[in-house]
């Protein structure tokens, strides 16, 4: 199978990821729940992962919180800062992981910047939308549908200038683009472990630069006499037993990313995406969504063809792509593809040019059969 759905989760991982997770299942107990070797091994593994994540994403190990996924991290971040009626500015390319919690809370949502591949327009819209009284800014770093790289550094600078807390969704950028909590001055940065960090599903990270509120309460293995959760991180946000096996796998994923030259994974994915787009543009009736700056994700539509049926036909030829709305109706509304959806191709470090060529041949074959 050719797997082009890294935007959802990376399927091919470094072999060390599975090996570490397998080792952990038989050697690690629960961290913070005992002083015996198996518990301390688990504690050491978690701390090593926190330290490495802290080094990679520019924060202290204690400010790295393990979550189930990016959605879990985003919920913690949003519910720490936003209450009913609060005005929140979001980009026009946000995922439901942001949009739905904000709706659930009853926040006043102001969408800023809906023009694809136009960082100047995005920045201008954020500047206009950041009025006094804005409680938070929520911004994805890279659109999960179109690969559009938003001008995060400039938006962060604007937030710092106006003293508005910034929550960053780094779901599509962590492991690919530089993500630095302290340099951005962000309140929170949220990321999954299972996408471009190559960890197992069920892992995520929340980097904390602001005060937090709990989402779950329970055992933390610390300050057990207290009725409430501890006030300090990471214990405050980590109630219950950790996903130790997943975190041990994530550690190896982080090591894999770190072992690469900075920017090399991004360059590889962009090379694949550019090659694919060149091929797609030559196919009649295909509309390719491209521009600059764009990461290793590309969406396209084909006139008169249902995107889900097209993806189904590609699956039948051994190619895994994602079709539909990608849990991001706002991004589709911004790009004018809310009715049709798109077919999305998203690359990882493990994809090759040869796979891209085989995909192009398969697509042509599918379209000729119409």
């Amino acid at each position, binding site marked *: 199978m050719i797997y082009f759905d890294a935007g959802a989760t990376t399927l091919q991982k470094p072999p060390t990821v599975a090996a570490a997770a397998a080792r952990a299942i038989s050697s690690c107990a629960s*961290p*913070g729940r*005992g*002083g015996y070797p198996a518990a*301390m091994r688990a*504690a*050491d593994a978690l*701390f090593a992962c*926190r*330290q490495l994540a802290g080094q990679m994403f520019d924060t*202290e*190990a*204690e400010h790295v919180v393990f979550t189930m996924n990016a959605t879990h991290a985003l919920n913690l971040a949003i519910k720490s800062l936003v209450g009913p009626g609060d005005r929140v500015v979001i980009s026009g390319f946000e995922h439901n992981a942001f949009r739905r919690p904000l709706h659930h809370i009853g926040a006043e949502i102001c969408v800023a910047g809906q023009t694809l591949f136009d960082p100047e327009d995005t920045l201008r819209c954020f500047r206009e939308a950041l009025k006094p009284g804005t409680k938070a800014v929520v911004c994805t770093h890279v659109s999960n549908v179109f690969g559009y790289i938003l001008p995060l550094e400039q938006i962060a600078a604007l937030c710092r200038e106006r003293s508005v807390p910034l929550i960053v969704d780094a779901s599509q950028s962590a492991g690919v683009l530089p993500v630095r909590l302290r340099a951005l001055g962000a309140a929170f940065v949220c990321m999954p472990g299972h996408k471009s960090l190559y960890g197992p599903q069920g892992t995520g990270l929340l980097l904390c630069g602001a005060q937090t509120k709990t989402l779950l309460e329970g055992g933390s*293995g*610390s*300050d*057990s*006499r*207290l009725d409430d959760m*501890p006030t*300090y*991180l*990471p*214990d405050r946000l980590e109630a219950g037993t950790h996903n130790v096996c997943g975190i041990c796998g994530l550690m190896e994923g982080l090591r894999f990313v770190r072992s690469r030259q900075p920017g090399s994974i991004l360059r590889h994915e962009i090379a694949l995406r550019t090659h694919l787009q060149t091929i797609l543009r030559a196919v009649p009736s295909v509309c390719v969504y491209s521009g600059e700056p764009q990461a290793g994700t590309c969406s396209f539509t084909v006139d008169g063809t249902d995107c889900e049926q097209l993806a189904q036909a590609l699956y039948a030829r051994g190619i895994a792509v994602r079709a539909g709305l990608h849990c991001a109706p706002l991004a589709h509304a911004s790009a004018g593809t809310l009715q049709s959806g798109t077919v999305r191709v998203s690359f990882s470090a493990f994809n090759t040019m040869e796979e891209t060529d085989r995909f192009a041949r398969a697509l042509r074959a599918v379209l000729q059969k119409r």
Partner: protein
Amino acid sequence: MFSYLFTFRSLTAAQSAGSILHRAAVACQVQRAPAQASAQGCGYAVRVPGTEGRRAASVLRMWQRPFGKSYRLSDGGRLEETAL
């Protein structure tokens, strides 16, 4: 031979302190704090050899890794709060 215990509010804080001490070539071990040294229950401590107590305290202060209290732990298990 006795040792010293430095208590921390969390396991991660103790691990972080342990990491700093290792880098400063101070032998240490992260462990559960004795119940007597854990006011709120389930505390954590970093244990260093008796000869390294003052240096460890100095390193932790220099790297801004605040510990709760420090204790002298005798071989027989007697725990005594002490200022370092």
